[in-house]
């Protein structure tokens, strides 16, 4: 496939065990070298196109994740790295884990594995780039970047009130 731009990635640890985070970092280092695609790991959400996020997201981290997501300019794609980020994984039954990144922000690509291997992370990012291109085209036509409308409601265990996110 062709990569039309040099997309930059933002990496954030959404309550993971760290295993997937070091694999994300490892995939940017010489052995796997994500940078050969012109992909750079940036620390600034305002420069980023791809959001790599690991972990099942806990209640304190939810706001941070949503804020980072909202600071990224459109078009943007989200890659959930690791089985925790996909659906909570081994921590699914923990009292503090919301259980999956897609409960707090829309996710475009899911990379399974515990820990996800660098090869599959790179594969996930490359898949995300195709989606990024599609979103860019939609924006050029004056449409909203996402085809589907994302809605989700989370209820904190123990509390009655429903929060609209």
């Amino acid at each position: 496939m062709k990569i039309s731009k040099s997309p930059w990635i933002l990496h954030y640890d959404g309550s993971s065990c760290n295993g997937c985070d070091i694999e994300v970092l490892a995939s940017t280092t010489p052995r796997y070298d994500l940078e050969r695609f012109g992909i750079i790991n940036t620390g600034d959400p305002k420069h980023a196109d791809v959001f790599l996020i690991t972990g099942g997201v806990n209640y304190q981290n939810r706001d941070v994740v949503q804020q980072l997501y909202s600071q990224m300019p459109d078009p943007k794609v989200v890659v959930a790295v690791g089985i925790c980020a996909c659906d909570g994984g081994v921590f699914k039954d923990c009292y503090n884990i919301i259980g999956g990144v897609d409960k707090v922000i829309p996710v475009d690509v899911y990379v399974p594995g515990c820990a996800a291997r660098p090869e599959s992370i790179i594969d996930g990012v490359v898949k995300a780039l195709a989606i990024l291109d599609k979103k860019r085209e939609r924006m050029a036509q004056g449409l909203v970047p996402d085809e589907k409308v994302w809605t989700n409601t989370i209820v904190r265990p123990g509390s009655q009130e429903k929060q609209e996110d």
Partner: protein
Amino acid sequence: MAVNNNAKKISVVPFGPQHPVLPEPIHLDLVLKDEKVVYALPSIGFVHRGLEKLVEKRDYEQFVLIAERTCGICSFGHGMGYVEAIEKIMNLDIPPRAKFLRTMWAELARMHNHLMWLGLQADAFGFESLFMECWRLREKVLDMLELTTGGRVIFSVNKVGGLRKDVTPEMLEQILKTLDGLEKECRVVTDTFLGDPDVLSRMKGVGVLTPGRAEELGCCGPFLRASGVKRDCRQLGYEAYGELKFEPIVSYDGDCYARCLVRIEELYQSMDLVRQCIAKMPGGDIAVKVTGNPNGEYMVRIEQPRGEALYYVKANGTRYLTRYRNRTPTYANIPGLIETIKGAELADVAMMILTIDPCISCTER
């Protein structure tokens, strides 16, 4: 109204939770007077998962996998600490081969942790190529781990009663060969850390912690040893450490350079310990049969790459434990960190946070 330009202004700068130098979220409120930090207020909780409470939902054999996922970097050690506690409660006598293999893997994990740390430290003071070089070398350690355990960061080779996997003599042979090459390459990298004037100017005399304060604040691991306190839990002789020859590595300056030095020396020490393990590797079984359920309590201390970790297990005779408690090294080192940050330049803060080798996911579990 006249403005007094000389008045020192107090300002609060938030650091984190998302910050470029740290892969993990920690938040610090830095109170600054001009560029100097006068106070630092940590707030944590972004990675708290509450995995200790999962003992109620997973039985004691399944929980090994959860204990391991406390942290993806010291994953081997966490699994080992937990199973050791259960084995002690159940009075299981582990075959010597399993002990030596555990020790070998624990040391390989220390090597990959220290190389990773060196890389992140280089990144923190902006030496990008050194970062890449360290991580390139780290991949070789991961190769050895993958060869023998099958995993890169999460190994899942421990089980109550021994190991799940045995290694072949060819694998050990391969490890020895890789180690020789790796040691030569590591020397080049570590000489840069210890001799390059730019690197020294960032680390020498920065963030000094005196031995007295380090002890008082309950620091542990390389952070404590860099302040001149000779304490290393491996000397307790758990697993096969009692049969290996080594001395804790200490340095006396207590600054960032000393911490770097201690970790570099430990890297070579680990290589030596792996070689000793392989030389003495006994044959025989790798696991014993486990029957019944644990009943009782036990506490294990283990020297993780980042310092002393403590595992407490309380069992009640059923398959489900009553309590699992894990006190991890980073948590113990945070008070020491706050002490060193006080009075530092803002630009040095990121690097100083790194010198305790923070692992937020094990701090909060």
